[in-house]
């Protein structure tokens, strides 16, 4: 996986967000705006996953569980406690962060596929609860989420888009900051070799715990955004296909890259819509497309771009995450 560079500029991120601001003026209808919102939501979700797995190497198969908990908490805090959307949002993120801490504390002793299986179990438990605690979660039919209002009127689709964009922008900047900072390099050092990272003074356990909690909170943010857009939450938010979408985004966009989550989310959201015209062959074509990506662009589209840059610098001595950490500490 490519390493983040210390001197990477924030301006590409700002440019992407500026494009996001202009998007409602460039799109032709509400459906396209919905697709744009879904891209941002999946990008948010995948940014948490990217920090956790792409940068830190901690594979969590339970991110969809936090996504669902965030969405349900956002809905329930409004429905049951009558909180405003802003307070419900803060509450949902806090609940997921605490839940993430509770889960991470014992589970982060595990590594690789053991951690994957344990977190998958967590996701399955949450999905079971969403389906079976019918009085609380609404069961299969889920819950209706009150619409966002402004001045007593329900916010229109463009208004909702800018709310989602603003939230996505904050997460994107945070993701980018971590990726470009010494924290990102420490995380990469943990990913590459935990023992070596610890030997170099990286507080491995603390970083792993923090990034797990942050990823859970980011998943909750995505869940809240989805609730705002769809006005509904149901158990499907915590199902396996959300995890598959995240993994596909990682493959297509590029794991451990700055723009991978956004590029991957755009392709994974738009491509199925374009392939609808192929009818029953759509799934086949989509699957073939993913296989081709795995074979020929294993680091994803964003990884491809960063690899090109690294190739240009091939004359420079090879660097590893560990040397980057040493440099920061020194």
């Amino acid at each position, binding site marked *: 996986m490519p390493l983040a560079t210390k001197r990477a500029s924030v301006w590409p991120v700002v440019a992407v967000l500026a494009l996001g601001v202009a998007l409602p003026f460039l799109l032709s*209808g*509400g*459906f*396209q705006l*919905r*697709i744009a919102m*879904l891209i941002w939501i999946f990008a948010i979700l995948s940014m948490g996953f990217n920090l956790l797995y792409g940068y830190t190497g901690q594979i969590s198969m339970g991110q969809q569980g936090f996504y669902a908990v965030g969405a349900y908490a956002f809905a329930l805090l409004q429905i049951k406690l009558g909180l405003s959307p802003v307070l419900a949002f803060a509450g949902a993120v806090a609940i997921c962060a605490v839940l993430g801490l509770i889960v991470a504390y014992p589970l982060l002793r595990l590594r690789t596929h053991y951690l994957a299986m344990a977190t998958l179990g967590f996701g399955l438990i949450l999905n*079971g609860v969403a*389906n*079976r605690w*019918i009085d609380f979660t*609404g*069961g*299969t*039919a*889920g819950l*209706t989420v009150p619409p966002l209002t402004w001045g007593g009127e329900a916010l229109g689709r463009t208004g909702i888009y800018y709310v989602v964009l603003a939230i996505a922008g904050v997460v994107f900047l945070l993701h980018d900051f971590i990726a470009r900072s010494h924290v990102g390099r420490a995380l990469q050092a943990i990913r590459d070799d935990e023992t070596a990272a610890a030997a170099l003074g990286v507080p491995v356990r603390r970083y792993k715990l923090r990034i797990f909690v942050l990823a859970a909170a980011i998943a909750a943010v995505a869940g809240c955004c*989805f609730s705002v857009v*769809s*006005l*509904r939450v*149901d*158990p*499907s*938010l915590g199902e396996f*296909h959300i995890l598959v979408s995240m993994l596909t985004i990682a493959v297509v966009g590029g794991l451990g890259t700055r723009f991978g989550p956004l590029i991957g989310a755009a392709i994974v959201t738009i491509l*199925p*819509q374009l392939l*609808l015209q192929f*009818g*029953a062959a*759509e*799934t086949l074509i989509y699957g073939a497309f993913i296989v081709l990506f795995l074979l020929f662009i294993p680091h994803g589209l964003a990884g491809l771009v960063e690899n090109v840059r690294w190739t240009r610098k091939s004359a420079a001595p090879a660097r590893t995450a560990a040397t980057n950490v040493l440099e920061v500490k020194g």
Partner: protein
Amino acid sequence: MTPIHSTEGIRARRAMLMAGSLLAAMAFSSGAGAEPLALKICSIDDRSGSAADTGIESLNGLHMVVDPVNEAGGINGRKIELIEYDGKTDPQLTATLATRCAEDDKGLLIIGPSPTAPAAAVVPVANQNKIPAYILSAAANALTDNAEFQFRFGPKAAQDAIAVADAAAERGFKRVAIINNSVPFGIDGSESVMAALKEKGIEVVARETYDVAATDVTPQVMNLSSAKPDLVLVYPYPADGARVIRSIRQMGVTAPVIMPRVGLMKAFRELAAADANGVLVPSSVDISRPEVKKFFEDYAAKYGAVAPTPSAVQGHDAGTLAIKVLSDAEVQKAIDSGDLAAARLAIRDATLRLGQIDGLQGQAGVTYQFGKGQHHGAPDKGFFVYTEVAGDGKELVAPDDAKFRPAQ
């Protein structure tokens, strides 16, 4: 210099006049001659994924009503355009497709989906875009509470449960055991029937839940068997349903078995084969009705033989009401005006006005009950009949009532 200025002035005035005339012409043309709307209906249902059978059959049933109308020239000379989307049993995708139908395709009406979760995801889209949605078999009880634009053709879970509890009470069953899979259909179905049985004072002596992918359900069936029930209720999907019924037979449980909805499905009957014999199924499709029999004969001729499941019939009935509504004078007037929002509202209102149709679901003479404040079409009484699986899973026959009794 003056002549030049004068010429430029004339040119400018001419240009302004031309632009003004053009704008006036455009305004006149758009106001006076708005194009009538195309008769677009979006069929959004699950044609792949775990509920693929229901979506395929409902679409075929819909085609069986719409195609003859189109072949005869359409409604007032305009053909109905069916836009078909596969929701893949994914609520989020289904909601996106519904938005595409409402906003990009300019659809007048959505027909589908069948399962509860995708259907529930369509409801906010229908309300936001004020587009009527004819939901098919979604069973969640609250789906049409305080409904605005959604209508439901299938029975709700509580009605399934009431039909089972009524049958159990009428026949004197006292000890019921329930086994269900871990997916929403199994959980919701068993929860609803437990409530209905409780109202009838019938004891639930055992309830077992198994994972839908479990290859061995013997422990759960052993628990059922040891509770000595006089009636067993099974809420599975087709493949796991076959495993459950096989275990029930192997364990020597002799109590009658009721399997709502899934017992009718071809996949279950083929997998269970001889073990499926004697399974009882409450169904909204009364195969003793001549028109229902003819429908399934025509269906078989066009699409291949299919078990008389509610999905095909629901697609047919939703299409029948849609055509009746689209033919309504008020709706036609709104469609001719080219005003999409007005046309959708007119369709919603006409559905409430004309919704007491005699469809293929329910017993003979029982009609849908759509009307003001009533967006759920199936009535509580006369909507279910019992069917028995026979002929090693190949046949569906009227049940032998003598066998449908508690063992003495």
